[in-house]
């Protein structure tokens, strides 16, 4: 039992990283990105590719893949989403679904549909014990890394000019425009950040568990669930939500593997019905 | 003057605050049948908040609002519309890809108690369009119509809802003086049908010309309530608009 909690928490940071991007896009731009999970998977598979086929060390591969994923996301925003968003915002839901399908199918064609996992050699000691549970060093390092990345994102949003624009769009869209903030540029930058942090999450995840192109939808749902648990508009909430979700996901795949997806969805439904603003949310949970 | 008449609308110590901001402190006033009340005040004074409270888009934090004696405080907007309190909206809110006729017809189909009995929805729509002199635009798409005519559609739509009380929210915004004067005349015709009007405006001339009474709201409180001429000369009102120095000279 205790080991389930610990392993769940270790992965929770990664889930949170993926969810930040999703929550940011929903809060700032106001769209549902069904292609979100694709960024996670893309980042992970690209990291794997860079590390195995091109022989890059893990950390540079990770960062490079994250940046590439961010660029992909920004490009998608500029070429596709921006256009549809101005005329029929409700259609963006479907459009991103289509984009997810296309990118996934292309991924399957070029990379094959099998799962991949990355074995990373580190010079670290194998691990240490917390109580009766053995914690692999690598997992722990990734956990720290995910917390650090979350911190970097937090600083980005609180301290930079980009962050100010993001907060303005999220909290008061109409006056943001009046205050001279370039909406389309801010949206592209937001998507870039979302893609980059999701790609990072994917690159970290693939060093722990397998990833395959068809898993993108699961990641979109996971991110949404984390956001629902933690609350829209609160980074701390998403972080906590990610940790909680990590434990829940690990626990359900451990104890009730056959119905794990149903458990996920039932939790989702319960939250949506009874606490849509999440644990820490700012009350705007049911905006269209 | 008030007294023997029964008020149509009573706003009783209405208050609204949220998240630490006090939008409305304590406002009370009445609107009687067959009267036009102008509601004025500086920006941010709470006029639109008051509007949203009456029409049910926001909940009261304190006090009560009654229409013909019945409290509106926990009713949904559609229920309030059904009781006869109908409003227009500040941003143009027409259904763009529908015809002018259909835009008004939606209101007719769901009209409330105040409309004339025995009319079909289609007749109601036609009457409203005629009152606002836009029947000839019936088949045009609403989004292709000029600004002035869009305001008329708004009024027609509100009239088609069968109001006892019509509330307009800065309906003259963005109009040149000629168009504005025409809208004021339309509202006069509406009033002539026995519908009371709460008229929120910045354009002083229109307010003075149309209103039987003027209520002034500033910083969440009512600071004047009386016939237009009186209110215009009131030192409190002048100081709110022009600053304290000017008031002393009156």
């Amino acid at each position, binding site marked *: 039992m205790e080991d389930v909690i610990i392993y769940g928490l270790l992965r929770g940071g990664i889930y949170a990283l993926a969810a930040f991007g999703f929550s940011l896009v*929903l809060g700032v731009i106001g769209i*549902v990105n069904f292609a979100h999970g694709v960024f996670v998977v893309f980042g992970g598979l690209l990291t794997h590719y860079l590390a195995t086929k091109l022989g890059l060390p893990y950390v540079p591969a990770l960062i490079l893949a994250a940046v590439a994923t961010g660029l992909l996301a920004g490009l998608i925003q500029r070429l596709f989403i921006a*256009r*549809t968003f101005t*005329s029929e915002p*409700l*259609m963006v*839901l*479907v*459009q991103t*679904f289509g*984009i*997810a*399908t296309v990118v*996934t*199918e*292309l991924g399957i*064609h070029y990379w094959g549909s099998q799962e991949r996992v990355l074995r990373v050699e580190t010079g670290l000691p194998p691990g240490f014990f917390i109580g009766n549970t053995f914690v692999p060093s690598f997992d722990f390092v990734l956990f720290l890394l995910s917390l650090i990345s979350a911190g970097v994102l937090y600083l980005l949003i609180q301290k930079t000019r980009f962050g100010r624009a993001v907060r303005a769009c999220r909290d008061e869209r*109409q006056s943001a425009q009046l205050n001279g903030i370039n909406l389309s540029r801010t949206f592209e930058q937001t998507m870039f950040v979302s893609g980059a942090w999701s790609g990072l999450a994917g690159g970290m995840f693939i060093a722990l568990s397998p990833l395959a192109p068809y898993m993108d939808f699961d990641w979109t749902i996971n991110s949404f669930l984390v956001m629902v648990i933690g609350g829209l508009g609160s980074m701390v909430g998403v972080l906590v939500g990610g940790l909680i979700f990590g434990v829940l996901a690990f626990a359900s795949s451990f104890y009730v593997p056959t*119905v794990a*997806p*149903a458990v996920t*969805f*039932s939790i989702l*439904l319960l939250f*949506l*019905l009874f606490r849509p603003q999440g644990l820490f949310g700012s009350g705007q949970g*049911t905006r*269209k | 003057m008030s007294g023997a008449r029964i008020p149509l609308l009573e706003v009783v110590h209405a208050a*609204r605050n949220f998240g630490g901001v006090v939008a409305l402190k304590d406002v009370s006033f009445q609107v009687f049948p067959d009267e036009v009340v102008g509601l004025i005040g500086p920006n941010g004074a709470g006029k*639109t908040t008051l509007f949203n409270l009456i029409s*049910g*888009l926001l909940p009261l934090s304190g006090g009560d609002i009654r229409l013909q004696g019945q409290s509106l405080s926990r009713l*949904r*907007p*559609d229920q309030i*519309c*059904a009781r006869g309190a109908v409003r227009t*909206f*500040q941003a*143009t*809110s027409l259904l*763009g*890809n*529908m015809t002018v006729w*259909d835009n008004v*017809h*939606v*209101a007719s*189909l*769901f009209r*409330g108690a105040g409309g004339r009995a025995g009319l079909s929805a*289609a007749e109601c*729509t036609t009457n409203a369009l005629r009152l606002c002199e836009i029947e000839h635009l019936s088949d045009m798409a609403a989004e*292709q*119509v*000029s*600004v002035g005519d869009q305001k008329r559609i708004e009024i027609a*739509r509100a009239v088609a*809802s069968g109001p006892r009380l019509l509330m307009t929210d800065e309906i003259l915004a963005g109009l040149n003086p000629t168009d504005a004067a025409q809208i004021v005349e339309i509202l006069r015709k509406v009033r002539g049908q026995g519908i009371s009007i709460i008229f929120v405006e910045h354009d002083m001339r229109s307010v003075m010309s149309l209103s039987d009474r003027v209520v002034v709201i500033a910083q969440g409180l009512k600071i004047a309530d009386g016939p237009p001429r009186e209110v215009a000369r009131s030192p409190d009102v002048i100081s709110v608009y022009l600053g304290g120095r000017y008031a002393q000279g009156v």
Partner: protein
Amino acid sequence: MRSLFVGSGRSGAARLRLQFAWLAVFALALAPIPFLVNDYWVRVAVFVLINIGLASSWNIIGGFAGYASFGHGVFFGLGAFVGAIGIVRYGLPLLVMMVAGGLVTGVIALLFTPIFKQRGLYFALSSLAVLLIFDNILQRWSFTRGLRQYDVGWSVQPSLSLTGFYYTFLGLILVLIGTVILLAGSRVGYALHALRRDEVLASSLGIRVLKYKVIAFVFSAAWPGVLGAAFAPFISFVSVQSVLDMKFTLNMILATLFGGAGTVIGPIVGAIALSVIDQLTWGNFLEYHRLIFGALIVAITTFAPGGLVSLFLSLTRRAPKARPEAAPPIGKVKVSS
């Protein structure tokens, strides 16, 4: 240019007559098909009819009301199970089961109306959750698993010939479209149109928004239930895999959006167009099937978000000259606190 909504209020009766006339033409065009083509194509035609029906139903909640139900296939699947259980376990006739299918799904839709407290994504995912919950229940509950203890589905004897099924479905679809035409032009249609655009505004016009969302949802759920019940003997094996496949939901959404959401003819055109593309890619580009589908969605949503219908309209109508005193863009109602 967006398609113009014209309700049945003004020149109402004339417009309805025109729409029903087109429906009659549609019926006449499709009636002789079993005599003109071989069995393979008749089967394809049945699937096209079912897709038209499902898309038209989804259009009521997804297109007219603007609530994208991502789990809507659950009603089709439930209808199929109702049909299968009724026919196999209780020996009831198909006609009765079709009605039962519609009733069961209608009631279930009614029970799930709390999910309407949310909008957009939240609603979409809630509806998906509903689908998965039923997916699990149907798989585990012994009453629905099959006739015998270790069954994983229901074998349903086809009670009609292929031609019989074709005309059954054709009849169902014609009635379905007829009810959609009536609904779209009625008070309900106006209400849905208004609330899709802006629920706050609709409410202020006297429209009880929740009531009409429920009406739309129940209507859009009942018809797939009816179609599902008829589908049971047609497909002859009903299991969670065969009738609760995500592809039914995806097809109905896609067909509606591709053709044009919020119009009567959109889902019909979309379903037919997609079936044509499906047949072509299946035969010639099997590997790229899903890729092409995805690319189509992206193309339509990016370049013609109103669907084929709006594309057609913008090509055939001259764009109106912008008037100099034209109004500022029409926007949503902003409620300031």
